[in-house]
């Protein structure tokens, strides 16, 4: 899966629809309609993608936190993989602030099971990059205690699913102590780790923790999906005074992308406009973004113009960006990896219905995994995760 998804390019001319007539079938038409080749070419990130197409995007001016144009036009930047981007962000923050420390299992000299903390122990020492015994509740609690006395720990769960063992500390202490102490003690921790459905990792290693944690008051949740936003979100999370849970995805660590050389951070509460469009708003995050973009290719060939938003901020939702999009397209499709019941999609559906009911022409549709533990067998696993074909069908259904 490539992080940089090009639209059809200049090669194909595609039609656009000024308004959607639900009765008419959407059909490609090559007559009299302006070519929109400039507008739909959207990179997976806003960085120095040689095709600088952002200029025409006037509709949602601040969907992306940083000024993408600068590095896009200069063309400088360096290419790296997502896990390296996370490491770069972490290292920069550790250089900047001596209070930042890392703790988790095998994060030290082993470099972390996904190599996000590689090299940090050599550079910063064994105390600042701390290898802990195996007890998630303990090192999460430890991080909270250290945070209350002035450090800024980055707590790594080897797999997000293991953080279920730390639920007590996260819910009862991490989210709560700032409030119950009357603001006397802050807990600026970052809890991060890989989660989501991988390749045949079995049910216990394929958990979607965002659905369990979303109710906890006092925490923020963000999900990264590209090297650009991974680094930006990591830095922003470390600098935040609130406890932030940063969700990474097991299958996205090897995505390659060119990111700016200059320092930047991403806004924790903002969603990312991946592909502006007119017909339908597709809301997604993390790995599903790539399934959606793959489906988008097919959809664009079929003449649809989906607007794809990577919501990035799972708690709280960026209802500003989402709302603007809904007001434009009047149709919403949510594509997520969480399970049907009680997932991020369920909450997002409720939020959209509550806030933007008047703007919807069709009920909000949510594509999620079934309410089953993730099976091991490859075929079964594939069926439990939303696939691009399903997304295409759903869009077609919604746009009728």
């Amino acid at each position, binding site marked *: 899966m490539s992080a940089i998804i090009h639209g059809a390019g200049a090669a194909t001319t595609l039609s656009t629809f000024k308004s959607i007539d639900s009765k008419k079938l959407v059909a490609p038409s090559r007559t009299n309609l302006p070519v929109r080749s400039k507008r739909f070419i959207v990179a997976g990130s806003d960085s120095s993608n040689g095709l600088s197409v952002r200029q025409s995007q006037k509709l949602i001016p601040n969907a992306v936190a940083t000024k993408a144009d600068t590095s896009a036009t200069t063309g400088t930047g360096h290419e790296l993989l997502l896990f390296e981007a996370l490491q770069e962000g972490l290292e920069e923050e550790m250089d900047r602030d001596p209070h930042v*420390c890392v703790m988790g299992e095998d994060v030290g000299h082993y470099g972390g099971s996904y190599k996000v903390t590689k090299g940090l122990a050599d550079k910063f020492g064994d*105390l*600042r990059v*701390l290898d*802990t*015994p195996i*007890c998630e*509740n*303990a*090192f*999460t*609690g*430890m*991080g*909270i*205690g*250290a*945070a*209350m*006395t*002035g*450090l800024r*720990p980055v707590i790594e769960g080897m797999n997000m699913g293991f953080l279920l063992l730390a639920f*007590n*500390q996260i819910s*009862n*202490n991490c989210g*709560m*102590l*700032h*409030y*119950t*102490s*009357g*603001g*006397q*003690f*802050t807990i600026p921790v970052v809890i991060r780790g890989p989660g989501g459905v991988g390749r045949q990792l079995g049910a216990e290693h394929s958990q979607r923790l965002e659905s369990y944690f979303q109710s906890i*008051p*006092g925490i*923020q949740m963000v999900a990264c999906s590209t090297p650009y936003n991974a680094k930006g979100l990591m830095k922003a999370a470390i600098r*935040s*005074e*609130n406890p932030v849970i940063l969700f990474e995805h097991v299958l996205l660590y090897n995505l390659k992308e060119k990111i700016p050389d200059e320092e930047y951070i991403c806004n924790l*509460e903002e969603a990312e406009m991946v592909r502006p469009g007119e017909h339908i708003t597709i809301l997604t995050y993390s790995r599903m973004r790539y399934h959606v973009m793959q489906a988008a290719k097919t959809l664009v060939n079929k003449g649809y113009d989906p607007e794809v938003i990577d919501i990035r901020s799972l708690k*709280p*939702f960026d*209802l*500003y960006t989402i709302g603007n999009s809904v007001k434009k397209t009047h149709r919403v499709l949510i594509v997520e990896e969480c399970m049907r019941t009680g997932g991020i999609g369920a909450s997002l559906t409720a939020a959209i219905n509550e806030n933007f009911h008047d703007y919807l022409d069709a009920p909000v549709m949510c594509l999620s995994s079934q309410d089953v533990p993730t099976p091991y067998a490859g075929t079964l696993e594939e069926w439990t995760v939303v696939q691009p074909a399903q997304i295409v069908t759903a869009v077609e259904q919604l746009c009728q």
Partner: protein
Amino acid sequence: MAIWFARSRSLVSSLRQNLGLSAILIKRDYSPRPIISKSFLGPVTSHRHESTAVEKHPDLVQPSDEEDVLELDFPGGKVGYTSEMKFIPESTSHRVPCYRVFDKNGRIIPNSDFIPVSEKLAVKMYEQMATLQVMDHIFYEAQRQGRISFYLTSVGEEAINIASAAALSPDDVILPQYREPGVLLWRGFTLEEFANQCFGNKADYGKGRQMPIHYGSNRHNYLTVSSPIATQLPQAAGVGYSLKMEKKNACAVTFIGDGGTSEGDFHAGLNFAAVMEAPVVFICRNNGWAISTHISEQFRSDGIVVKGQAYGIRSIRVDGNDALAVYSAVRSAREMAVTEQRPVLIEAMTYRVGHHSTSDDSTKYRAADEIQYWKMSRNPVNRFKKWVEDNGWWSEEDESKLRSNTRKQLLQAIQVAEKWEKQPLTELFNDVYDVKPKNLEEQEVGLKALVEKRPEDYPPGFHV
């Protein structure tokens, strides 16, 4: 920093207690442990001292020249072997003895090890123990009268509360369970501040967000009490880690009850502190009861002190109702933790005279005469009082004056705190995050509108 252990009779009245003292450590060696070397311990540093070397028992592992190896090599080091199949018994023939300085009548036992306490300090300790007693009594009554919703007394554990606090420096960070208000009292939290928290009024530092007795004050280095049991233990390891990183002359001190040691966090916290060599003092108040669960139903080990060695942590069992013993033990433990950068475990044996809380009636599960016995004959406050009086530092007149003044002050504090206005509605939504996010702002606006629209549905004096 080192401590001077003295013979009881000679030096009691002449020494001034000063936490910044630097003196020669002379340890009286009654135990079979190797003697800790006499050495000048200089300014506190974070590296280890020779004293840690003595833990290795040199006789056990001998390198051998013979073909037959006398030890086996495994990850974790060399270990001697035996061909005799022998199980380590589940318990030793004798329980670990309990360190005490006073006899039951408040007289110092001859030849005891302890750190001398000056008159000023002793009197302050006694006053605070008595104040704690009065405070517990009055607040308990206030709850019974319906003026506060909940209260939890520390009756029977005053010595642990006050003597441990007296042995620490103000920079040491306290992570309490919930039965240690005496530590906060020692550090200067006023009776008015206690009352404000219990009433959850506008002056409460917790801003009315927590139940009574969930005190917290960053000024006094006392982390806010959190109801779930034992969660503070791994956090203490974290605080110790933070202090170690910043090379501070301070340690983390955390409290837990006997019941709390069954929680997974107990294992986690101790193990982590040991592995990280964090300066943490774990004080376990073994008071015999966890609500209605007696310790015989809580664990099968010889109390908690034996668990220390399982984690590689130095530990001691102390008579928790003996103020001087607690003071000496905690003071020594604190020095060890800071100078040697290691955790220490103290099991303070005591008895929970009061009910678990105001929601409990302990006569339902234990004999009333058992409670009465501990309340009268094994009372730590009376025991210390006898000693202080015997030294001529305290009189009956001082006693009655202190108790009546404290009582008056408390009643006054409660009256004022009760009438003090409560937090406005906006405090429901503040401090969830550092800056109020949009969704909470909306929820606040919605609630405000609701309250303003129908004020008759809400209590009088409830303001937005």
